[in-house]
Protein backbone atom coordinates (compact mmCIF):
# COMPACT_ATOMS: atom_id res chain seq x y z
CA UNK A 1 0.00 0.00 0.00
CA UNK A 2 1.18 3.52 -0.77
CA UNK A 3 0.40 6.37 1.59
CA UNK A 4 0.82 10.05 0.65
CA UNK A 5 1.19 12.93 3.12
CA UNK A 6 1.66 16.62 2.21
CA UNK A 7 4.79 17.99 3.90
CA UNK A 8 5.80 21.52 4.83
CA UNK A 9 9.16 23.19 4.01
CA UNK A 10 11.03 21.31 6.74
CA UNK A 11 9.85 17.97 5.31
CA UNK A 12 8.84 16.64 8.72
CA UNK A 13 5.45 18.00 9.65
CA UNK A 14 2.21 17.60 7.77
CA UNK A 15 1.54 20.72 5.69
CA UNK A 16 -1.83 22.37 6.42
CA UNK A 17 -2.42 22.79 2.69
CA UNK A 18 -2.83 19.78 0.46
CA UNK A 19 -2.61 21.20 -3.08
CA UNK A 20 0.04 23.79 -2.28
CA UNK A 21 2.21 21.74 0.05
CA UNK A 22 5.83 22.09 -1.11
CA UNK A 23 6.56 18.36 -0.72
CA UNK A 24 4.79 15.03 -0.63
CA UNK A 25 5.83 12.04 1.41
CA UNK A 26 5.21 8.67 -0.23
CA UNK A 27 5.34 5.78 2.23
CA UNK A 28 5.27 2.23 0.90
CA UNK A 29 3.99 -0.09 3.63
CA UNK A 30 4.93 -3.28 1.82
CA UNK A 31 8.67 -2.68 1.60
CA UNK A 32 8.84 -0.06 4.35
CA UNK A 33 10.43 2.61 2.10
CA UNK A 34 9.69 6.30 2.21
CA UNK A 35 10.50 9.03 -0.26
CA UNK A 36 10.00 12.79 -0.23
CA UNK A 37 9.21 14.37 -3.58
CA UNK A 38 8.53 17.92 -4.73
CA UNK A 39 4.82 18.59 -5.21
CA UNK A 40 4.55 19.79 -8.84
CA UNK A 41 1.26 21.57 -8.06
CA UNK A 42 2.65 23.80 -5.30
CA UNK A 43 3.18 26.79 -7.60
CA UNK A 44 0.17 26.26 -9.88
CA UNK A 45 -1.74 29.44 -10.74
CA UNK A 46 -5.05 27.67 -10.36
CA UNK A 47 -6.40 24.19 -9.84
CA UNK A 48 -3.53 23.23 -7.51
CA UNK A 49 -5.70 20.71 -5.65
CA UNK A 50 -6.71 18.98 -8.87
CA UNK A 51 -3.15 18.86 -10.13
CA UNK A 52 -1.78 17.52 -6.84
CA UNK A 53 -4.55 14.90 -6.77
CA UNK A 54 -3.64 13.79 -10.28
CA UNK A 55 -0.02 13.56 -9.14
CA UNK A 56 -1.06 11.13 -6.39
CA UNK A 57 -3.20 9.11 -8.78
CA UNK A 58 -0.25 8.84 -11.17
CA UNK A 59 1.91 7.56 -8.32
CA UNK A 60 -0.54 4.76 -7.48
CA UNK A 61 -1.29 6.14 -4.03
CA UNK A 62 -4.01 4.28 -2.06
CA UNK A 63 -4.31 6.47 1.04
CA UNK A 64 -3.91 10.20 1.64
CA UNK A 65 -3.36 11.59 5.14
CA UNK A 66 -4.00 15.35 5.19
CA UNK A 67 -5.16 18.20 7.40
CA UNK A 68 -7.67 19.39 4.84
CA UNK A 69 -8.67 18.86 1.25
CA UNK A 70 -10.74 20.80 -1.26
CA UNK A 71 -13.89 19.62 -3.02
CA UNK A 72 -12.34 19.23 -6.46
CA UNK A 73 -9.41 17.16 -5.21
CA UNK A 74 -11.81 15.08 -3.11
CA UNK A 75 -13.78 14.31 -6.26
CA UNK A 76 -10.63 13.08 -7.96
CA UNK A 77 -9.88 10.83 -4.98
CA UNK A 78 -13.43 9.51 -4.91
CA UNK A 79 -13.22 8.50 -8.56
CA UNK A 80 -9.75 7.06 -8.10
CA UNK A 81 -10.90 5.25 -4.93
CA UNK A 82 -8.16 6.81 -2.82
CA UNK A 83 -9.08 6.96 0.86
CA UNK A 84 -8.54 10.19 2.80
CA UNK A 85 -7.69 10.29 6.48
CA UNK A 86 -7.42 13.27 8.82
CA UNK A 87 -3.87 13.98 9.95
CA UNK A 88 -3.02 14.30 13.65
CA UNK A 89 -0.79 17.16 14.89
CA UNK A 90 2.22 14.80 15.11
CA UNK A 91 4.96 14.42 12.49
CA UNK A 92 4.26 12.83 9.12
CA UNK A 93 6.13 9.70 10.12
CA UNK A 94 4.08 9.36 13.31
CA UNK A 95 0.95 9.79 11.21
CA UNK A 96 1.94 6.79 9.09
CA UNK A 97 2.30 4.72 12.28
CA UNK A 98 -1.01 6.02 13.61
CA UNK A 99 -2.74 5.15 10.36
CA UNK A 100 -1.34 1.61 10.40
CA UNK A 101 -2.47 1.24 14.02
CA UNK A 102 -5.98 2.30 12.97
CA UNK A 103 -5.84 5.47 15.07
CA UNK A 104 -6.75 8.00 12.37
CA UNK A 105 -10.23 8.98 11.34
CA UNK A 106 -11.48 9.43 7.81
CA UNK A 107 -11.70 13.00 6.51
CA UNK A 108 -15.29 13.65 5.56
CA UNK A 109 -15.49 17.43 5.28
CA UNK A 110 -14.06 19.15 2.22
CA UNK A 111 -13.71 22.88 1.72
CA UNK A 112 -14.79 24.85 -1.33
CA UNK A 113 -11.31 26.01 -2.18
CA UNK A 114 -9.33 29.07 -1.17
CA UNK A 115 -8.30 30.12 -4.68
CA UNK A 116 -5.07 31.67 -3.52
CA UNK A 117 -6.66 33.45 -0.54
CA UNK A 118 -5.98 32.04 2.87
Amino acid at each position, binding site marked *: MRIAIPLDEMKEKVCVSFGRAPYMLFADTENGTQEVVINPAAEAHG*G*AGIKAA*QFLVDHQVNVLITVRCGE*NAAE*VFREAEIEIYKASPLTAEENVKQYLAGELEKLTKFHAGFHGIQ
Partner: protein
Amino acid sequence: MRIAVLSGKGGTGKTFVSVNLASVIKDSIYLDCDVEEPNGRLFFQPEITKEIAAVSKIPVFDGEACVGCKKCVDFCAFHALIYIKEKPKVFTEVCHSCGGCMLLCPAAAISEEDKQIGVVEAGRGINGVPVITGILNVGESSGIPVIQKVLEEGDRIAAGKEEAVQIADCPPGSACSVMESAMEADYCILVTEPTAYGLHNLKMVYELVTVLGRKCGIVINKDEAPYEPLEAFCREKQLEVLARIPFSKEVAKLTADGRIASRELPEMEKEFTDLYHKVRGCVMS
Protein backbone atom coordinates in the same frame (compact mmCIF):
# COMPACT_ATOMS: atom_id res chain seq x y z
CA MET B 1 -19.77 56.20 -27.75
CA ARG B 2 -18.86 53.87 -24.94
CA ILE B 3 -17.50 55.05 -21.61
CA ALA B 4 -16.02 52.40 -19.31
CA VAL B 5 -16.03 53.07 -15.58
CA LEU B 6 -13.25 51.26 -13.74
CA SER B 7 -11.48 51.21 -10.42
CA GLY B 8 -8.85 48.86 -9.18
CA LYS B 9 -10.28 48.72 -5.70
CA GLY B 10 -13.79 47.46 -5.04
CA GLY B 11 -16.16 49.74 -3.17
CA THR B 12 -14.64 52.91 -4.60
CA GLY B 13 -17.79 53.96 -6.40
CA LYS B 14 -17.85 52.47 -9.92
CA THR B 15 -21.53 51.69 -9.78
CA PHE B 16 -22.25 55.00 -8.07
CA VAL B 17 -20.49 56.92 -10.85
CA SER B 18 -21.90 54.73 -13.64
CA VAL B 19 -25.49 54.93 -12.49
CA ASN B 20 -25.40 58.66 -11.80
CA LEU B 21 -23.66 59.38 -15.07
CA ALA B 22 -26.07 57.24 -17.08
CA SER B 23 -28.88 59.07 -15.35
CA VAL B 24 -27.88 62.56 -16.53
CA ILE B 25 -27.15 61.63 -20.17
CA LYS B 26 -30.12 61.82 -22.50
CA ASP B 27 -29.50 58.74 -24.65
CA SER B 28 -27.58 56.58 -22.22
CA ILE B 29 -27.46 52.80 -22.07
CA TYR B 30 -26.31 51.29 -18.79
CA LEU B 31 -24.25 48.09 -19.11
CA ASP B 32 -23.51 46.11 -15.98
CA CYS B 33 -20.30 44.22 -16.76
CA ASP B 34 -19.64 43.52 -13.08
CA VAL B 35 -21.15 40.10 -13.66
CA GLU B 36 -20.14 38.59 -10.31
CA GLU B 37 -22.16 41.15 -8.41
CA PRO B 38 -24.25 43.25 -10.80
CA ASN B 39 -25.98 45.87 -8.71
CA GLY B 40 -26.78 48.75 -11.06
CA ARG B 41 -30.22 47.18 -11.46
CA LEU B 42 -30.95 47.94 -7.81
CA PHE B 43 -30.91 51.64 -8.75
CA PHE B 44 -32.58 51.51 -12.16
CA GLN B 45 -35.06 48.76 -11.30
CA PRO B 46 -35.52 47.76 -14.92
CA GLU B 47 -38.46 45.79 -16.17
CA ILE B 48 -36.84 42.80 -17.84
CA THR B 49 -38.08 42.29 -21.38
CA LYS B 50 -35.35 40.08 -22.76
CA GLU B 51 -33.10 37.32 -21.47
CA ILE B 52 -30.09 36.05 -23.35
CA ALA B 53 -28.20 32.92 -22.33
CA ALA B 54 -24.42 33.26 -22.03
CA VAL B 55 -22.54 30.08 -22.80
CA SER B 56 -18.96 28.93 -22.84
CA LYS B 57 -17.38 25.91 -24.49
CA ILE B 58 -16.29 22.92 -22.48
CA PRO B 59 -14.49 19.82 -23.75
CA VAL B 60 -16.29 16.52 -24.20
CA PHE B 61 -14.26 13.33 -24.40
CA ASP B 62 -14.81 10.36 -26.66
CA GLY B 63 -13.62 7.64 -24.29
CA GLU B 64 -13.20 5.08 -27.06
CA ALA B 65 -11.06 7.31 -29.25
CA CYS B 66 -8.87 8.47 -26.33
CA VAL B 67 -5.44 6.86 -26.44
CA GLY B 68 -4.54 7.88 -22.88
CA CYS B 69 -1.54 10.05 -23.78
CA LYS B 70 -2.57 12.69 -21.19
CA LYS B 71 -1.31 15.52 -23.41
CA CYS B 72 -4.52 17.42 -22.66
CA VAL B 73 -4.08 17.02 -18.89
CA ASP B 74 -0.47 18.21 -19.00
CA PHE B 75 -1.36 21.12 -21.28
CA CYS B 76 -4.25 22.58 -19.27
CA ALA B 77 -2.86 25.67 -17.53
CA PHE B 78 -5.85 25.79 -15.17
CA HIS B 79 -5.65 22.08 -14.25
CA ALA B 80 -9.25 21.58 -15.23
CA LEU B 81 -8.53 18.12 -16.67
CA ILE B 82 -7.74 14.86 -14.94
CA TYR B 83 -7.08 11.32 -16.09
CA ILE B 84 -8.25 8.52 -13.81
CA LYS B 85 -8.76 4.86 -14.52
CA GLU B 86 -7.95 5.36 -18.19
CA LYS B 87 -10.57 8.06 -18.56
CA PRO B 88 -10.16 11.82 -19.02
CA LYS B 89 -12.53 14.13 -17.18
CA VAL B 90 -13.10 17.89 -17.01
CA PHE B 91 -13.90 20.09 -14.03
CA THR B 92 -16.23 22.41 -15.93
CA GLU B 93 -16.12 25.26 -13.38
CA VAL B 94 -12.33 25.38 -13.61
CA CYS B 95 -12.20 25.23 -17.44
CA HIS B 96 -11.48 28.57 -19.15
CA SER B 97 -12.71 27.40 -22.57
CA CYS B 98 -9.42 27.99 -24.36
CA GLY B 99 -9.95 24.98 -26.63
CA GLY B 100 -6.28 24.01 -26.35
CA CYS B 101 -6.97 20.40 -25.33
CA MET B 102 -9.11 19.87 -28.41
CA LEU B 103 -6.42 21.27 -30.72
CA LEU B 104 -3.72 19.20 -29.08
CA CYS B 105 -5.43 15.79 -28.92
CA PRO B 106 -3.62 13.46 -31.34
CA ALA B 107 -6.60 11.09 -31.43
CA ALA B 108 -9.21 13.77 -32.12
CA ALA B 109 -11.08 12.43 -29.11
CA ILE B 110 -12.14 15.86 -27.82
CA SER B 111 -15.02 17.97 -29.08
CA GLU B 112 -16.72 20.95 -27.47
CA GLU B 113 -20.20 21.60 -26.22
CA ASP B 114 -21.99 24.66 -24.91
CA LYS B 115 -22.50 25.09 -21.23
CA GLN B 116 -24.64 27.91 -19.90
CA ILE B 117 -22.66 29.93 -17.39
CA GLY B 118 -24.91 32.93 -16.95
CA VAL B 119 -27.59 35.15 -18.35
CA VAL B 120 -27.95 38.67 -19.67
CA GLU B 121 -31.11 40.56 -18.76
CA ALA B 122 -32.22 43.58 -20.74
CA GLY B 123 -35.00 46.05 -20.10
CA ARG B 124 -35.74 49.69 -19.41
CA GLY B 125 -35.36 51.21 -15.99
CA ILE B 126 -36.04 54.53 -14.30
CA ASN B 127 -36.21 57.40 -16.84
CA GLY B 128 -36.47 54.81 -19.61
CA VAL B 129 -32.74 54.06 -19.46
CA PRO B 130 -31.94 50.75 -21.19
CA VAL B 131 -30.31 48.56 -18.56
CA ILE B 132 -28.35 45.48 -19.60
CA THR B 133 -27.25 43.27 -16.73
CA GLY B 134 -24.78 40.42 -16.99
CA ILE B 135 -25.22 37.73 -14.34
CA LEU B 136 -22.62 35.00 -13.93
CA ASN B 137 -23.67 31.75 -12.28
CA VAL B 138 -22.13 31.21 -8.86
CA GLY B 139 -18.99 29.06 -8.98
CA GLU B 140 -18.02 29.81 -12.58
CA SER B 141 -14.42 30.86 -13.02
CA SER B 142 -14.68 33.25 -15.94
CA GLY B 143 -17.39 35.81 -16.64
CA ILE B 144 -15.98 36.88 -19.99
CA PRO B 145 -18.63 35.21 -22.19
CA VAL B 146 -21.31 37.00 -20.14
CA ILE B 147 -19.52 40.34 -20.51
CA GLN B 148 -19.24 39.83 -24.27
CA LYS B 149 -22.99 39.29 -24.49
CA VAL B 150 -23.64 42.44 -22.44
CA LEU B 151 -21.43 44.52 -24.75
CA GLU B 152 -23.01 42.96 -27.86
CA GLU B 153 -26.47 43.83 -26.61
CA GLY B 154 -25.30 47.38 -25.84
CA ASP B 155 -23.99 47.76 -29.38
CA ARG B 156 -27.22 46.37 -30.76
CA ILE B 157 -29.36 48.92 -28.89
CA ALA B 158 -26.95 51.75 -29.78
CA ALA B 159 -26.79 50.81 -33.46
CA GLY B 160 -27.86 53.65 -35.71
CA LYS B 161 -28.19 56.11 -32.82
CA GLU B 162 -25.34 58.55 -33.07
CA GLU B 163 -26.05 60.17 -29.72
CA ALA B 164 -26.25 56.91 -27.78
CA VAL B 165 -23.78 56.72 -24.90
CA GLN B 166 -23.05 53.32 -23.41
CA ILE B 167 -21.83 53.38 -19.84
CA ALA B 168 -20.00 50.16 -18.99
CA ASP B 169 -19.89 49.53 -15.24
CA CYS B 170 -16.78 47.30 -15.08
CA PRO B 171 -15.76 44.64 -12.56
CA PRO B 172 -13.25 45.67 -9.89
CA GLY B 173 -9.58 44.85 -10.19
CA SER B 174 -7.48 44.74 -13.34
CA ALA B 175 -7.86 41.14 -14.51
CA CYS B 176 -9.14 39.66 -17.79
CA SER B 177 -12.79 40.51 -17.12
CA VAL B 178 -11.89 44.20 -16.65
CA MET B 179 -9.83 44.15 -19.82
CA GLU B 180 -12.72 42.65 -21.77
CA SER B 181 -15.11 45.31 -20.43
CA ALA B 182 -12.84 48.27 -21.23
CA MET B 183 -11.02 47.04 -24.34
CA GLU B 184 -13.15 48.86 -26.90
CA ALA B 185 -14.25 51.82 -24.83
CA ASP B 186 -13.78 55.31 -26.26
CA TYR B 187 -12.94 56.56 -22.82
CA CYS B 188 -12.12 55.08 -19.42
CA ILE B 189 -13.12 56.81 -16.22
CA LEU B 190 -10.88 55.61 -13.42
CA VAL B 191 -12.67 55.99 -10.11
CA THR B 192 -10.49 56.16 -7.03
CA GLU B 193 -10.59 57.36 -3.46
CA PRO B 194 -8.04 59.38 -1.49
CA THR B 195 -6.51 56.42 0.34
CA ALA B 196 -3.30 54.41 0.01
CA TYR B 197 -5.27 51.34 -1.04
CA GLY B 198 -7.27 53.35 -3.58
CA LEU B 199 -4.08 54.74 -5.10
CA HIS B 200 -2.33 51.36 -5.15
CA ASN B 201 -5.11 49.78 -7.20
CA LEU B 202 -5.54 52.89 -9.35
CA LYS B 203 -1.95 52.44 -10.50
CA MET B 204 -2.74 48.89 -11.61
CA VAL B 205 -5.85 49.83 -13.52
CA TYR B 206 -4.07 52.85 -15.04
CA GLU B 207 -1.38 50.51 -16.31
CA LEU B 208 -4.08 48.30 -17.85
CA VAL B 209 -5.80 51.12 -19.76
CA THR B 210 -2.39 52.37 -20.90
CA VAL B 211 -1.59 48.93 -22.33
CA LEU B 212 -5.00 48.95 -24.01
CA GLY B 213 -4.24 52.41 -25.44
CA ARG B 214 -7.45 53.96 -24.05
CA LYS B 215 -8.00 57.61 -23.17
CA CYS B 216 -8.62 58.02 -19.48
CA GLY B 217 -9.23 60.46 -16.64
CA ILE B 218 -9.71 60.30 -12.90
CA VAL B 219 -12.70 60.72 -10.64
CA ILE B 220 -11.84 61.04 -6.96
CA ASN B 221 -14.80 59.82 -4.96
CA LYS B 222 -15.39 60.36 -1.24
CA ASP B 223 -12.97 63.29 -1.43
CA GLU B 224 -12.46 64.90 1.97
CA ALA B 225 -8.97 66.33 1.75
CA PRO B 226 -6.29 66.02 -0.94
CA TYR B 227 -4.27 62.84 -0.55
CA GLU B 228 -0.87 64.04 -1.68
CA PRO B 229 0.50 60.74 -3.09
CA LEU B 230 -2.61 60.52 -5.32
CA GLU B 231 -2.27 64.14 -6.41
CA ALA B 232 1.41 63.55 -7.18
CA PHE B 233 0.59 60.45 -9.23
CA CYS B 234 -1.97 62.37 -11.31
CA ARG B 235 0.56 65.18 -11.90
CA GLU B 236 3.34 62.79 -12.82
CA LYS B 237 1.20 60.87 -15.33
CA GLN B 238 -0.55 64.07 -16.49
CA LEU B 239 -3.90 62.55 -15.65
CA GLU B 240 -6.84 64.91 -15.64
CA VAL B 241 -8.93 64.86 -12.48
CA LEU B 242 -12.36 65.07 -14.08
CA ALA B 243 -14.32 65.32 -10.85
CA ARG B 244 -13.88 65.39 -7.12
CA ILE B 245 -17.01 64.09 -5.50
CA PRO B 246 -17.03 65.24 -1.90
CA PHE B 247 -17.74 62.77 0.86
CA SER B 248 -21.33 63.39 1.91
CA LYS B 249 -23.50 61.47 4.32
CA GLU B 250 -26.56 62.61 2.44
CA VAL B 251 -25.30 61.09 -0.81
CA ALA B 252 -24.19 57.92 0.99
CA LYS B 253 -27.62 57.55 2.55
CA LEU B 254 -29.45 58.09 -0.75
CA THR B 255 -27.21 55.55 -2.44
CA ALA B 256 -27.65 53.02 0.35
CA ASP B 257 -31.40 53.40 -0.15
CA GLY B 258 -30.99 52.47 -3.82
CA ARG B 259 -31.70 56.00 -5.01
CA ILE B 260 -29.86 57.92 -7.71
CA ALA B 261 -28.30 61.06 -6.23
CA SER B 262 -28.02 62.94 -9.53
CA ARG B 263 -31.79 62.71 -9.94
CA GLU B 264 -32.50 64.14 -6.51
CA LEU B 265 -29.74 66.60 -5.63
CA PRO B 266 -29.10 69.55 -7.99
CA GLU B 267 -25.40 69.71 -7.01
CA MET B 268 -24.97 66.03 -7.91
CA GLU B 269 -26.83 66.52 -11.18
CA LYS B 270 -24.40 69.33 -12.00
CA GLU B 271 -21.40 67.27 -10.91
CA PHE B 272 -22.26 64.40 -13.25
CA THR B 273 -23.39 66.62 -16.12
CA ASP B 274 -20.04 68.44 -15.95
CA LEU B 275 -18.25 65.10 -15.81
CA TYR B 276 -20.05 63.92 -18.93
CA HIS B 277 -19.21 67.10 -20.84
CA LYS B 278 -15.54 66.79 -19.92
CA VAL B 279 -15.42 63.16 -21.05
CA ARG B 280 -17.30 64.00 -24.24
CA GLY B 281 -14.83 66.80 -24.92
CA CYS B 282 -11.90 64.39 -24.49
CA VAL B 283 -13.46 61.78 -26.77
CA MET B 284 -14.23 64.30 -29.50
CA SER B 285 -10.80 65.96 -29.42
